[in-house]
């Protein structure tokens, strides 16, 4: 199959390309970007007015399978991912059972390969059962295919265990994906500690729940030499700590979830449980600092932080609901919509959802380099996307953006030269 994607604005940050060009695909690989003689396409896509970018690479997508199939399944979420322009994603280890044995990795790989929609990678558990007490069999998990290890949203209270886990992960040459939250400072909290939590009488999570944990992780990373990635930074102070560690020579990366770049604790004022996230949505100053960090490189990548839930999980008073938002299908439009904020040009934003996360995961993905697998997303940046709670392919209806019209409709998603999503409506 030979495919020609004509006349789109090709943005390929890894190769520093941002120009109107044709993309040639042959045998599932990128054959050329620009022009190519004697190419007889079997199919031609007119991408006039669209962006042609690498397929998105998501650092954190919860598929909910195994263990929470009442919320979502690998099938439902991979279809949603493909519709959202995603071609590669990484799952945190907090499934049930936890990803701490090769069997779970195998099961996830087998199910996702059958579908063939998205390349699925897994993080293994850092501690057995994510209990924070004993080490998981990291080398076995690495052999089974895990691209890194982490403890998801289960903080490791014991610093000695964390130190040993870092040391052992470093020995196995595994990167640690660390969700920075201090167990005790977070305990019981559901909202950013500040004026909004005070007004609503909600138990707060102070910024120090994150910054204390980041400090500890950075110091232990310096001591142990582990390769560290900090997941879901939400605070300005956290970014400062990370930047200071970099200046001391530590090669540490960091990501933010897409919701945290748009929403703040003020969005809790109407008690919408879909805005119940962990870590919590913080105030506008922190949100602005995350945007600035994205512009100056302090934030390495943006992830969807997709967490689909069933209706029951989001029913009840705010404190009684489960945290997390379903975001996969809004991830790219919400990212594109950041363009225009100071220092946030499209190539930088596209890099944050393609080449940068691929680099963090050490995967040959997220670029349109000739010869690489043809993982491509064609998106019309001006076409409206109406978000309603009951539309979309994800089984999770828990989007904080229901009722909004976003811009950025994914027209085509291609993985390994095959279309995994095609929206031929072209209504705009």
């Amino acid at each position, binding site marked *: 199959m030979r495919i020609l994607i004509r006349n789109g604005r090709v943005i390929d940050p890894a190769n520093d390309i941002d120009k109107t060009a044709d993309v040639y695909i042959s045998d599932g690989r990128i054959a050329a970007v620009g022009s190519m003689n004697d190419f007889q396409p079997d199919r031609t896509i007119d991408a006039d007015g669209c962006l042609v970018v690498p397929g998105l690479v998501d650092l954190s997508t919860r598929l909910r399978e195994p263990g929470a199939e009442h919320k979502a399944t690998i099938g439902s979420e991979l279809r949603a991912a493909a519709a959202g322009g995603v071609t590669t994603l990484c799952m945190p280890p907090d499934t049930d059972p936890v990803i701490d044995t090769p069997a779970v990795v195998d099961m996830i790989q087998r199910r996702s390969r059958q579908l063939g929609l998205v390349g699925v990678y897994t993080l293994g558990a850092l501690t057995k059962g994510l209990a924070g007490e004993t080490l998981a069999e990291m080398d076995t998990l690495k052999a089974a295919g895990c691209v890194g290890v982490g403890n998801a949203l289960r903080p490791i209270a014991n610093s000695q265990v964390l130190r040993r886990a870092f040391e052992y992960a470093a020995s196995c040459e595994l990167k640690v994906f660390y969700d920075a939250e201090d167990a005790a400072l977070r305990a019981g909290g559901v909202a950013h500690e500040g004026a909004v939590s005070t007004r609503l009488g909600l138990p707060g999570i102070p910024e120090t729940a994150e910054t204390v944990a980041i400090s500890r992780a950075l110091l232990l990373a310096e001591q142990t030499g582990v390769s560290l990635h900090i997941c879901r930074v939400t605070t300005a102070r956290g970014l400062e700590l990370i930047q200071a560690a970099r200046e001391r020579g530590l090669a540490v990366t960091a990501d933010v979830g897409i919701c945290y770049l748009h929403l703040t604790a003020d969005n809790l004022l*109407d008690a919408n449980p879909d805005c119940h996230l962990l870590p919590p949505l913080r105030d506008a100053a922190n949100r602005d600092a995350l945007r600035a960090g994205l512009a100056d490189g302090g934030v390495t990548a943006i992830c969807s932080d997709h967490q689909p839930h069933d209706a029951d999980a989001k029913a009840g008073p705010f404190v009684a609901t489960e945290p997390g938002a379903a975001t996969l299908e809004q991830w790219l439009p919400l990212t594109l919509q950041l363009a225009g904020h100071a220092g946030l040009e499209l190539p930088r934003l596209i890099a944050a959802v393609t080449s940068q996360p691929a680099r963090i995961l050490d995967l040959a993905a997220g670029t349109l380099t000739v010869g690489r697998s043809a993982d491509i997303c064609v998106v019309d940046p001006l076409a409206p996307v109406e978000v309603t709670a009951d539309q979309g392919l994800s089984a999770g209806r828990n989007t904080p953006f229901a009722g909004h019209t976003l811009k950025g409709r994914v027209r085509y998603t291609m993985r390994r030269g095959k279309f995994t999503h095609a929206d031929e409506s072209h209504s705009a």
Partner: protein
Amino acid sequence: MTTPQQHDPDNNSQLDAQGRLRHFLTTEGLSRDQLTQILDYAETFAGVGERPVKKVPLLRGKTIMNLFFEPSTRTRTTFELAAKRLSADVLNLNIEASATKKGETLADTLHTLEAMHCDMFVVRHAQSGAAHYIARQVAPHVSVINAGDGSHAHPTQAMLDVFTIRQHKPDFSQLTVAIVGDIAHSRVARSEIHALKALGVKTLRVVGPRTLIPAGVEQLGVEVFHDLDQGLRDVDVVMMLRLQRERMAGAYIPSEHEYFRRYGLTEARLAVAKPDAIVMHPGPINRGVEIDSQIADGRHSVILQQVSHGIAIRMAVMAMTLGRQGGENTADEDAG
């Protein structure tokens, strides 16, 4: 962009299309006029308890369910008394997490109870936001009164406190009020702050150790003090809050003894307040922990008046929310 859909703005969900109280969930967002209307209406009920026949027929034929997911004696009793004095039928249901512990969701519990055709739920629940959530679930003719949700709101308690203040100090614009104690966990304090700010008190202070003062509270329009002597200087009204024993286990304060030493209200402490200052407490009192017996039983104390005013306030709120179709009835017109 990026304000999510305002599907239920907190402050207006308790009003109906005509701007009348349909539920009573919070004092936040209510105007001075709306609050004054509640207080004025409560005045008309204040004498009912002293009549030989302590009943008015305003809510005859209505069924009110006291739905208490958290234990309470005095609040439940005054709600029950208020409902009975309005001639409503009252059911008391102490759920205390029994049904909900069995895996039944709050919504399921509610729909089951609603099938019994109640007209009003008076709800107390340990989780902030529970009353708002329940108000969103009930059928259109059903009203919900918040009898305390988590650390969020306790609007009838705040209104009876404000009612009591008004009886002693009618001009709010001249008042300095101090709320003392565990502000962080207090739904009473939050509801009082919203009501007193809306009614235009001159100065509103909160006093307590940093561990019990919630973050950003000054954005609600209060002045923060950590020293009781400074916080009480020249105040007209002192509102003491109850200290829960679990605060010691949570490492908020070291001991009751030390709390009393630093924040307990004594005659000596009260000396810096205005000579005619009144002292209030929502009860039940921890004598010798937050307040000295001499003060609780002394000439400044209006604590027992608060309790009887609670019945009038609850009658007013019940009659206003359930009696909306009937227009502006008063107890005098309808007493018979």
